[in-house]
């Protein structure tokens, strides 16, 4: 990602997610979102999230604090835990088209969360 795009994403996240905070850690910019809402049917309905912005990577990474159960009651597959800035977060794989020059930060976050609308 381009440096100016990274800063633009940070600004946009702060605008769209009230109470967002940032941290520079391990050469990356981390933005903590106090609440993101899971798709309908998930339990719990929301959690805290972390956006990892690394200039070396093509796209940001979204991690969540709590893994929801899906609308069908199942636990999502391919979710793994990782320690970032001393806290545990869960990452998940999801095929999402997102381009730093044409898509917004909100599209990135909300698009990634659609992974939990899939019942597997």
């Amino acid at each position, binding site marked *: 990602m381009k440096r100016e795009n990274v800063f633009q994403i*940070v*600004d946009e*996240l*702060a*605008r769209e997610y009230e109470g*967002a*905070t*940032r*941290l*520079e*850690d*391990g*050469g990356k910019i981390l*933005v*903590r979102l106090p609440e993101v809402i899971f798709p309908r049917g998930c339990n719990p309905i929301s959690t805290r999230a972390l956006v990892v912005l690394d200039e070396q990577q093509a796209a940001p990474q979204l991690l969540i604090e709590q893994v929801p159960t899906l609308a069908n009651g199942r636990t999502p597959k*391919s979710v*793994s*835990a*990782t*320690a970032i*800035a*001393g*806290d*545990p977060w869960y990452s998940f794989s999801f095929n999402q088209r997102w381009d730093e020059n044409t898509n917004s930060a909100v599209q990135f976050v909300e698009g990634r969360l659609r992974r939990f609308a899939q019942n597997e």
Partner: protein
Amino acid sequence: MNDIQMRVPRNLVGRLLEQIYRLGPRESVVFAFASHARTGSRDLILLRDLAIPPESAFLPSRGHGARWSGAYMVDLLNRALEQQLGLFIFHAHIGAKAVVMSEDDRASARELLPKFQLVLPQRPHGSIVLGVESVAGAILMPDSDEAVERFSLRMIEEHEIRTWPLPTATPEEYLLLRRQPLAENRLLKKMLNQTVVAVVGLSGGGSQIVSQLATLGVGEIIGIDSQRADDSNRMATPNLGWIDSLFRLHKTTAAKWRVWVINRKVTFTGIKARVPERSALDALKRADIIVGCVNNLHARADLNEVAWRYCIPYVDIGLVLATDERAAVEPRPLTAIPGNLFTAIPGAPCLWCAEFLTEAKLERETGGRGRPYLRDPAGRDALVAPFNGTLASEAACEVLRLIAGLKFHREVRHQYDGLSGTLLEVEVTKRETCPLCKSVLASGDPIWQPIRQGG
């Protein structure tokens, strides 16, 4: 209030002591930038960097004490603010065996520390004086306006963890520890008894390390494992037997029982969780040494991150059985029994510097899932208990070496060859560009900042 411990990583210890004990026309002063962290049992102050004042920073002084310019002080405070770190002043009373703050030191701390706190209230600030194996000082913790004078200083060195003040002992006991570190000695027992070792993974290697640590008389062993014992474990360790498997005991329960049988004075704290779950991370933060016996690289990466962030030495072991991947016949022939023993000392090379961890290797690994010892499509169990035992014993030796201070060149990784029964030394060097060493080392608990638009 929690105990307070200040930790100096290996890359800073030499420079700090060399500068502080330097004889000159005036008292030597060194400034340090520090983060901090709160654990369940103590507050940690973690030194990130040093600032050695240039000669031009000093002002003429009437006595032996040092005075420095306001401009230099402002410069330091700006740096501390930019990096969100606390500011500490170090000096020494050379030759003082049980060092104390002088009246001048106290007056200076009373004047300066509240000013530092005004600039950055979220981090601790302090004035520290070093003597001979002793330390004194005043530390102003965040959210407090009263300086704390009781704390310990831990220097993480290549061959040992030195913590000042030393436990009380007779001169004969100190001498014995210096000359024969492993001889039975009340002082060594006290040092072991004050140590908390976290063992992550209580299967083949970890279950054997726990027994060794209990024999040594380590004060507390934190055992972290989420699994229950099963029949496969019986081939990997003598410490998980038929009864553990029959009752499907949690590995933490089996380890707790074994520790009690070996040494009732040792506390065993079982954490039924996986790294990096919250309870596991909280328990790891409390440890003085981490021993990792995990079977995947993702868990190792997490352990290395925790160890570096809070300046905790990390001993890593692992073993696999390799088979000939190109063989067309089944079962594939066994080709090697490679193992690994690496003691990562915060401030020295980490697992990333040693290229034991790389992004490519992590990507290749299947999401951190466990695997059997034998790298073979059939997924058979293998009789590896004695091989694990060799590595487990060496890991326990490393713990003892670090506590007792046995001189040993440590910037090597040990490559174990189970076929020949040898441990080969592989030199490792610190990579100057390593992100973990550069950004995470001694970074403590993060301070999240509100986002200013356009910033």
